[in-house]
């Protein structure tokens, strides 16, 4: 199959009924560009920015907007460098026919990483506009200034020319040289302001088009029928079981991927429920109560260690045994965490239109180009025969089912020759998304007579953190093997083997003065395949391995502080965090009015015990966070209520403080939910936490009463990650606060009333 010329192909997709408030119409200029297998060339200004005849500037962003507001920040950065009023900034979200490949929109890096090429492209565009104005006004470039979307002569504002007059509707045709210097932070007038998000009005008036709202002319509705067990296979399908459903177009089976296509959505739901499939029996999951022992006993997967981390040794210094030998006090602790659901409120959805002359896919993916290539490989087509158009879906918080559902839609559309929308059910999402991996970690450490740490030995046992269908940046492209739906459809080539990737992040303690240290990530194998070591596919979720790792590192730090009889913050400061870490720790302590004393708090009478806990994270190259958590523990019921949270947050230069606060609040509340309530459940065959009753998440009456935020702006530093970092302080912070309140350590997530009561009983 030959891909159509781009213009023709676009016409074929013309039935799309979709529109974003700020989305500019596709211009002929963009259509005239060279679009390669990974989109427009990254080194051309025109690939990123287009100035229209009306004086608007359109950003062609390769970064998916996942509901965090980051695209507003990207527009701020572009408008800032262009010296353009923010109201004249428009946005095109990822589209493999129109936007550059910005790889994966993940890791809270939309601003920290993905704004960089945008900033540079805009700076180069502004420099080019000044050159054009110099010719037009016949004034040397160094006497020109830019403001409000126009170039004028310094000191003579009446002598000016607008960007629209200079280049509106035309191409720059210029390479990005790296020579144009972006503005210094002191010159910023938009960056650093809490500009309101562009998308919020449409979302509160019901005019926003989510992925789940995308409609294409002639579209049919599909639903899938998943196996009742992770490893079950189709033996037979009783087609007569759905013969009574009006509107049934087709029953589709490709290997173990089974689906139905109907004219109406409710018909597809009814058909998927009614379809009788005879599946083989399968009981290969571990007993849930043995999960962590099973993980601990898995053999190491030695070949998966990255070259720069042989043996999974993340840090090693001094001599552990010598350190332990001279300790006056030693501690050992084992920490456990469960699988989590991403828990997107809207289950995953995709629309696919597979035609003889090309394929169009609408998706809420985080990896537009990697997933496009995965789909192309799955269909045996060249990349450019598949166009992927991004539409924002329900918040994903990592790799939910957004990529997997595309294969469902493609398979069903191919079978019926019409565009098909596949909406996963709640049970499809909970049963078949990529779960946050369960983890077991073991620590031992020692204190000397002065209450200083003399040994720190921490080991965690985990799977890869990466099961996306996309290669790691800077390698373009992708593979379908990580997608559970491709696996069901019989795709046998394994997904990408990335070693332990982000699963090891932030396991090393952030303190400089910890001698005799060994920090190890024991790698148990790839995460991507449902036939992998634990049979449940796992993937990235809000921090990948970081939340588990920081839970272990900061709980163990707290255990050592308590064993030394020292105040938890003073003990941390004594072990020397880096300068920005000291700053956030002190800022949080001041804001929370932290009183220095050892933990646990003095015992009080009455059923409710109050406590506070601290946790911190941060290295020089990343966001630094200190969180203080104040809890009330009901000693009779075991219930934990988080009353007040204080977060001090240094993410370098702040682009949009309001959006940063929104992300911090959200991360804290979601992680509180995960700390107190959440655990994927399963039997020997399948996941059983398939709805909100079996997987409860935090409700309005359970959220923290208050979240106080201290933002430390560092315009001298580049912008750093926002979203994940604050959320990662929550699990250890709450665990440490529970210990402070009632004197027992909760080392297994979630901290349910049953676990708190069991710990209290054990301590009594």
């Amino acid at each position, binding site marked *: 199959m030959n891909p159509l010329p781009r213009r023709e192909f676009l016409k074929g997709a013309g039935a799309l009924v979709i529109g974003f408030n700020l989305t500019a119409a596709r211009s002929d200029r963009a259509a005239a560009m060279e679009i390669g297998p990974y989109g427009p060339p990254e080194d051309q200004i025109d690939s990123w920015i287009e100035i229209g005849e009306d004086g608007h500037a359109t950003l062609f962003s390769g970064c998916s907007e996942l509901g965090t507001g980051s695209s507003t920040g990207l527009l701020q950065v572009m408008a800032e460098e262009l010296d353009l009023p923010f109201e004249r900034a428009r946005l095109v979200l990822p589209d493999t026919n129109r936007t550059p490949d910005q790889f994966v929109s993940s890791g809270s890096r939309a601003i920290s990483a993905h704004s960089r090429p945008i900033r540079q492209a805009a700076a180069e565009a502004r420099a080019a506009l000044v050159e054009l104005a110099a010719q037009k006004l016949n004034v040397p470039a160094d006497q020109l200034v830019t403001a409000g979307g126009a170039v004028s002569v310094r000191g003579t504002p009446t002598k000016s020319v607008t960007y629209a007059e200079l280049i509106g509707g035309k191409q720059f045709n210029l390479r990005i040289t790296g020579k144009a210097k972006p503005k210094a932070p002191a010159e910023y007038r938009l960056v650093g302001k809490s500009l309101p998000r562009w998308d919020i009005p449409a979302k509160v008036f*019901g*005019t926003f088009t989510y992925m789940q709202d995308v409609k294409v002319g002639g579209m049919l509705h599909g639903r899938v029928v998943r196996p009742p067990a992770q490893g079950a296979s189709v033996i037979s399908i009783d087609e007569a079981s759905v013969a009574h459903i009006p509107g049934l177009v087709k029953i589709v089976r490709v290997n173990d991927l089974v689906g139905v296509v109907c004219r109406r959505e409710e018909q597809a739901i009814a058909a998927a429920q009614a379809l009788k499939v005879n599946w083989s029996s399968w009981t290969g999951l571990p007993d849930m109560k043995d999960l962590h022992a099973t993980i601990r006993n898995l053999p190491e997967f030695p070949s998966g260690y990255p070259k720069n981390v042989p043996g999974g040794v993340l840090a090693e210094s001094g001599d552990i045994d010598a350190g332990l030998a001279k300790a006056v006090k030693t501690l050992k602790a084992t920490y456990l965490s469960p699988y989590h659901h991403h828990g997107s*409120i809207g289950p995953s959805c995709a629309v696919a239109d597979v035609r003889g002359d090309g394929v169009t896919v609408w998706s809420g993916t985080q990896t537009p180009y990697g997933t496009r290539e995965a789909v192309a490989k799955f269909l045996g087509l060249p990349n450019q025969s598949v166009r992927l158009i991004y539409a924002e879906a329900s918040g994903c918080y990592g790799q939910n089912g957004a990529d997997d559902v595309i294969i469902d839609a493609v398979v069903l559309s191919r079978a019926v020759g019409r565009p098909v929308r596949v909406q996963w059910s709640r049970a499809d999402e909970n049963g078949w998304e990529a779960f946050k991996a369960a983890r077991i970690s073991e620590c031992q450490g020692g204190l000397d007579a002065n209450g200083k740490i003399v040994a720190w030995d921490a080991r965690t046992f985990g799977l890869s953190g990466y099961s996306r269908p996309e290669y790691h940046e800077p390698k373009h492209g992708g593979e379908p093997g990580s997608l559970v739906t491709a696996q069901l459809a019989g795709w046998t080539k394994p997904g990408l083997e990335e070693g332990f990737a982000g699963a090891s992040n932030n396991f090393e303690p952030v303190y400089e003065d910890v001698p005799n240290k060994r920090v190890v990530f024991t790698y148990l194998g790839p995460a991507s395949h449902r036939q992998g070591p634990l049979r449940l596919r796992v993937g990235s979720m809000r921090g990948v391995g970081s939340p588990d790792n920081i839970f272990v590192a900061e709980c163990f730090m707290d255990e050592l502080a308590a064993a030394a009889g020292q105040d938890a913050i003073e003990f941390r400061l004594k072990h020397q965090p880096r300068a920005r870490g000291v700053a956030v720790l002190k800022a949080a302590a001041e804001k929370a009015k932290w009183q220095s004393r050892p933990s646990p708090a003095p015992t009080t009478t009455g059923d409710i015990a109050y406590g506070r806990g601290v946790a911190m994270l941060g290295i020089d190259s990343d966001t630094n966070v200190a969180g203080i958590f104040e809890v009330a523990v009901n000693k009779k019921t075991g219930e934990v209520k988080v009353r007040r949270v204080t977060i001090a947050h240094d993410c370098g230069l702040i682009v949009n403080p309001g*959006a940063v606060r929104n992300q911090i609040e*959200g991360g804290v509340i979601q992680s509180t939910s995960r700390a107190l309530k959440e655990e994927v459940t399963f039997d020997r065959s399948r996941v059983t936490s398939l709805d909100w009753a079996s997987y409860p998440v935090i409700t309005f009456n359970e959220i923290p009463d208050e979240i106080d935020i201290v933002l430390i702006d560092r315009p001298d530093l580049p912008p750093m990650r926002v979203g994940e970092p604050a959320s990662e302080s929550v699990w250890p912070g709450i665990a440490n606060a529970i210990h402070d309140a009632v004197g027992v350590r909760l080392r297994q997530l979630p901290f349910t009333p049953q676990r708190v009561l069991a710990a209290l009983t054990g301590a009594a």
Partner: protein
Amino acid sequence: MATKTLRVNGKTVTANVDDLATPLLYVLRNDAGLHGPRFGCGLGQCGACTVHVNGEAVRSCVRPLSSIAASDEIVTLEGLGTQEKPHKLQTAFVEEQAVQCGYCINGMIMQAAALLTKNPKPSIPEIKNALQNNLCRCGTHLRIIRAVKRASEA
């Protein structure tokens, strides 16, 4: 096959469905072309699909068409207010930037609007109780509470 006529946002909507057990949500989304009410669970557990039927907040994903009379007034997020004539809750949600991904926000606003009709000056605990069965996964709860409070004081 059955034909159902509904009053939605002051207009008449006619849908041809196989049977009247069909939940209201699918007619609103696919026949009336509305984006406000959203599919979240199909089980009445999350609240993303919430609409008003005669001023009461109901879960449209489990509300069969058979239970709705032709005279019943159905109002969705689109009918509550528009950018030109916003409901005070919509204004407050924008002012408080009380949205992250926004997928749950339809339900939050519709549930809160039903609350404010009955209780124009709710306390914070009353707001929390009213929204207790509406789930938000982004963790926007505190902003949502602030927005409802702000609207109640507007």
